[in-house]
């Protein structure tokens, strides 16, 4: 695919309209079975349920914080489902949908926001790196990992997620340079949800974000981020060309953050409900639902079963969250270093003795 640096405009790739009409795109053909379509919808529904449940758990005080993905389900499921075994995803703190597709138990995410862990899963086992909170830090790491894939001559790629705000960070732009110079097998997946906390896109760029790639010499493309089929097709395409040695690409998933930045944010201070309403009409789930209907790929039983499954999942999360074990004090010391460390060991001993001085109760 040629670098679209001469693209006359910034139309995006859409394969499924908000009304649920299927559109063909010769650049990004999508062969997909009915089962796949159903399971994509299943993922969208269950991911949204995880998000809703986590938000509720935060309100109930079970989580310290939660970063909602509401509205970004299609972008994340589309990208996540394009990844194959051996690929590695580098998320921010909002990629719950990608985590789902990579087989990470949502409970692990909840532990992170409950404060029982700063990690929660085995990155290598899931092909899903730990969440990264410092904006942009994961991008050079993804490129380094991709360079490792290259050295190993493995048939895989890395995919790194970041937001519209993150696009302003030096590390993110440096990672574009490295990916391009080393022709690393990495796909940059930018979820442009129009907001960086309270700052609108105009604070980060004055041209469409996908065009950033033009300055670095690799393809940049915008997809309808609320269209799971488009996100899947374009992600598959860019990942495959990366695996085949054609180098990096930037995908801008044009979407919207329907919820607050996090549960501690109050978006009414900086944006209009009317904007949110306009985006509600482009809901990523509805269009798939109506498509499945029109195509008669599903019956009521399908939806009933899915609702039941979602209900069970929610139940499991509610109980599982409350049951999450608190980390032991020892973990703090034990995992600070991989090899013995005299100072940490001394502090560990001294603090244990100190705690022992209390009635055992002090030890949490």
């Amino acid at each position: 695919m040629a670098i679209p640096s001469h693209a006359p405009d910034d139309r995006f790739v859409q394969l499924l309209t908000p009304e649920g009409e299927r559109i063909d795109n010769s650049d990004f053909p999508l062969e997909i079975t009915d089962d796949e379509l159903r399971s994509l919808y299943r993922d969208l529904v269950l991911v949204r349920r995880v998000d809703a449940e986590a938000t509720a758990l935060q309100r109930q005080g079970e989580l310290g914080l939660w970063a909602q993905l509401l509205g970004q389900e299609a972008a994340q499921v589309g990208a996540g489902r394009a990844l194959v075994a051996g690929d590695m995803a580098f998320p921010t703190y909002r990629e719950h949908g990608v985590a789902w597709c990579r087989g990470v138990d949502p409970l692990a995410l909840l532990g992170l926001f409950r404060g029982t862990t700063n990690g929660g899963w085995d990155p290598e086992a899931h092909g899903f790196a730990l969440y990264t909170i410092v904006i942009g830090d994961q991008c050079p790491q993804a490129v380094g990992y991709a360079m490792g894939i290259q050295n190993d001559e493995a048939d895989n790629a890395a995919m790194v997620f970041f937001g519209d705000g993150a696009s302003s960070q030096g590390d993110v732009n440096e990672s574009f340079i490295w990916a391009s110079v080393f022709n690393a097998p990495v796909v940059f997946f930018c979820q442009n949800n129009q907001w960086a906390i309270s700052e609108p896109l105009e604070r980060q760029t004055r041209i469409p974000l996908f065009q950033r790639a033009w300055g670095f010499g690799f393809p940049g493309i915008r997809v309808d981020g609320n269209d799971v089929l488009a996100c899947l097709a374009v992600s598959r395409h860019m990942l495959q060309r990366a695996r085949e040695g054609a180098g990096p690409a930037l995908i801008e998933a044009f979407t919207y953050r329907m919820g607050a930045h996090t549960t501690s944010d109050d978006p009414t201070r900086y944006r209009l409900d009317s904007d949110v309403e306009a985006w509600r009409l482009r809901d990523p789930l509805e269009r798939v639902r109506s498509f499945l209907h029109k195509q008669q790929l599903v019956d009521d039983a399908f939806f009933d079963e899915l609702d039941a499954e979602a209900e069970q999942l929610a139940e499991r999360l509610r109980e599982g969250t409350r049951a999450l074990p608190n980390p032991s004090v020892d973990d703090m010391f034990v995992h600070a270093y991989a090899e013995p460390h005299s100072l940490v060991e001394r502090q560990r001993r001294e603090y244990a003795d100190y705690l022992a001085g209390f009635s055992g109760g002090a030890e949490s």
Partner: protein
Amino acid sequence: MTETMTMAGAINAGLRLALENDPKTLLMGEDIGRLGGVFRVTDGLQKDFGEQRVIDTPLAESSILGAAIGMAMRGYRPVAEVQFDGFVYVAFDQIVSQLAKMHARSSGLVKMPVTVRLPYGGGIGAVEHHSESPEAYFAHTAGLRVVTPSNPVDAFHLVQQAIACDDPVIFLEPKRRYWDKADVDMSAEPPLPMSSARVVRQGADVTLVTYGPMVRTCVEAASAAALDGCEIEVVDLRSLAPLDIDTVAQSVSSTGRCVVAHEASVFLGLAAEIAANVAEVCFYDLEAPVLRVGGFHTPYPPSRLEQHFLPDLDRVLDAVDRAMAY
């Protein structure tokens, strides 16, 4: 006139006065404008002073500092906010290589009246990178000044003193004390110079040196100890660089004992400098070694463990007891 204010409110009031008193003062940072900051510390300021003086910036801390330096060269007094302690490292180079050195390398021709506002410290149950205590990095850096208030009154005055100062000042805001309240007389003169420490509670038995978020903890510890007949003198440093070592030494030379407490890792934390310094100037007065209580040499743990990482009243008193035991 006097008003009851939270520390967040007091800083807001101080910033407002600085903006009113000097048209060259401007604020820059992420989400400080329309949102008023994630802690609402800059609430209402953009509305009243406009987008050119209260600037919502792109998400790039290194450039927030770099741009602030450029604005200072142009004659402005920028107040740069970095949203959380854990995100200041991205801007470390501009702070350490440029901001701190500019005055010296220009032989005093280029002044850097830049204030860097930085919420710091733990105790709010936050996710990773939101509970760091980076003060030692800055205090060790020649060319910078580092101050931190422990209460609304000091916050109100210190932030204005920092902005008025012709040197770069790292202004550390103890985020878990943002909602502590006090009466602030906004017409009063600053009670102390910016770099002076304060004895916040007198006591004859042991000197307890601390700053920022730990001051309240230490004062509570002193009250508790008093019940057991141990009189703790509590010193609030307020300025971490330079240190008002005279005030500390004066206290220690009368008590003969000293404990230093902070949230940051003890290893090479501020307490190390204070202990080394006090041990030298009070060598003949010390009846016990200067003891340090603070964070462990581990990355800040998940929030469910932070009550173990952060020194609390008991750990402070344990150190005091050990000092008294000599």
